[in-house]
């Protein structure tokens, strides 16, 4: 008995160090087809655990059609639907590849992606940047229209070459220092990255000024970065994903490497159980609505992969760093601190990179352990926005990952690693 426990604990130490010792660096912007492993032609990725097209929620179904139209695999909606139903389009979870599907998470080969390389772990992940005025837009909400298509083209052809030149000349931008400092400034880097946006901007502005392009082009690129809210969100996700990819597959580890939802189901992955999914009905978030007209009836259950950042020890686990985010749910400062302390009880270790003033300069917890979740009855608390069935933002809140996911995972673990 002791032997397996020791093996698990040693494996978990290793898994946690993938996160704590990670060195995520933003290095490039490339089309998804070039950087997302296994993303082929006539293939569309989506958020959440795997789900068949017929079963998908409206947002995902719409996203599939949008993906087809965007890539030009069909010209009209009807044709797109027919194509999909003929089985010609492969669909898969974004988290089955080295990427993250925030929101609806629609990713096809031509989407320009931020590339993050974890230089400590030797892994790479790609995440989609915010779509400027269409914050959600194609990737986030599976919408497609002429304007959205045009915006995507504009980003790809006009904005990104400038930004790409900058980052390649610079040789990469380390992301962990930005994450660490921003979390001392009130960000938890899931629903709030206000400070991270500013720190990022400060890091790149001089390099942007050095790029060899016209003033108009430079202005357009800067304007995109400055005016896109939560611009840094995809970089945080990229940092998290690249580290967690390194942890995936560590034998005997009970650390959670992925958490996500597709509005129907919630799924988790566990380091020692590789790519297997453990799913349960997706939870509803609890929080405050932006308007009193909304009730739970209007709400869509959890959709999105951005909770990959919770697996990296940010977001809900970093509540103490961001009492403002918690206040949106009606919580007080002491509740925000209590939330992080509660999360500590289900985590493997502490992350010395994230030292938080509100915790009296203690470190944030890191590495969710499925055993501890089941032992304490405490499920990870994930922060996020609340959305309605059309993809509109109707509030802010949080949800707990369903216990069933962990129960399934533990049972699978016991079968996989009999003593």
């Amino acid at each position, binding site marked *: 008995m002791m032997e397996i426990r020791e093996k698990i604990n040693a494996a978990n130490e290793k898994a946690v160090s993938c996160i704590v010792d990670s060195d995520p660096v933003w290095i490039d912007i490339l089309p998804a087809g070039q950087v997302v492993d296994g993303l082929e032609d006539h293939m569309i990725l989506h958020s959440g655990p795997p789900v068949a097209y017929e079963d998908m929620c409206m947002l995902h179904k719409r996203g599939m059609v949008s993906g087809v139209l965007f890539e030009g695999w069909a010209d009209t909606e009807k044709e797109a639907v027919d194509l999909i139903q003929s089985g010609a389009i492969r669909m898969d979870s974004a988290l089955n590849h080295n990427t993250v599907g925030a929101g609806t998470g629609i990713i096809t080969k031509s989407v320009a992606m931020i590339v993050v390389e974890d230089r400590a772990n030797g892994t790479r992940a790609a995440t989609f940047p915010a779509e400027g005025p269409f914050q959600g837009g194609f990737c986030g909400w599976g919408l497609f229209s002429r304007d959205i298509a045009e915006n995507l083209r504009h980003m790809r052809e006009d904005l990104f070459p400038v930004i790409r030149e900058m980052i390649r000349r610079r040789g990469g931008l380390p992301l962990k220092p930005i994450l660490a400092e921003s979390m001392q400034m009130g960000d938890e880097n899931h629903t709030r990255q206000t400070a991270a946006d500013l720190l990022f901007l400060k890091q790149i502005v001089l390099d942007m000024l050095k790029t060899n392009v016209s003033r108009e082009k430079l202005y357009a690129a800067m304007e995109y970065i400055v005016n896109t809210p939560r611009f840094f969100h995809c970089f945080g996700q990229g940092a998290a994903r690249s580290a967690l990819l390194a942890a995936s597959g560590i034998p005997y580890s009970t650390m959670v490497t992925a958490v996500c939802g597709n509005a129907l189901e919630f799924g988790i992955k566990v380091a020692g159980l590789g790519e297997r999914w453990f799913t349960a009905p997706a939870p509803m978030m609890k929080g405050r609505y932006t308007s009193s007209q909304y009730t739970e009836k209007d709400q869509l259950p959890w959709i999105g992969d951005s909770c990959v950042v919770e697996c990296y020890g940010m977001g809900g686990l970093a509540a103490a760093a961001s009492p403002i985010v918690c206040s949106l749910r009606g919580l007080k400062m002491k509740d925000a601190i209590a939330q992080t302390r509660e999360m500590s009880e289900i985590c493997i270790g502490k992350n010395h990179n994230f030292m938080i003033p509100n915790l009296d300069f203690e470190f944030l917890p890191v590495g969710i352990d499925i*055993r*501890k979740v*089941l032992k304490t*009855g405490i499920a990870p608390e994930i922060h996020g926005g609340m959305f309605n069935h059309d993809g509109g933002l109707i509030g802010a809140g949080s949800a707990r990952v369903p216990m069933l996911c962990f*129960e399934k995972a*533990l049972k699978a*673990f*016991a079968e996989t690693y009999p003593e």
Partner: protein
Amino acid sequence: MKETSEQRSCRKRPRVINIGLSFFYEALVAQKVKTVQLEWRPPVRQSAEIKSLLDDLL
């Protein structure tokens, strides 16, 4: 030598652990008693199978 509980109950000012209503804790604090409020949580309900797995693995 460890105190017997007889001796203990007759000593002045018992040291009290409070579990439950916080105003009982406050009343002890007001009486300047050495006291602590247990941050109690309801016990976790687990299936027998999960409980047994946790006994082995955690």
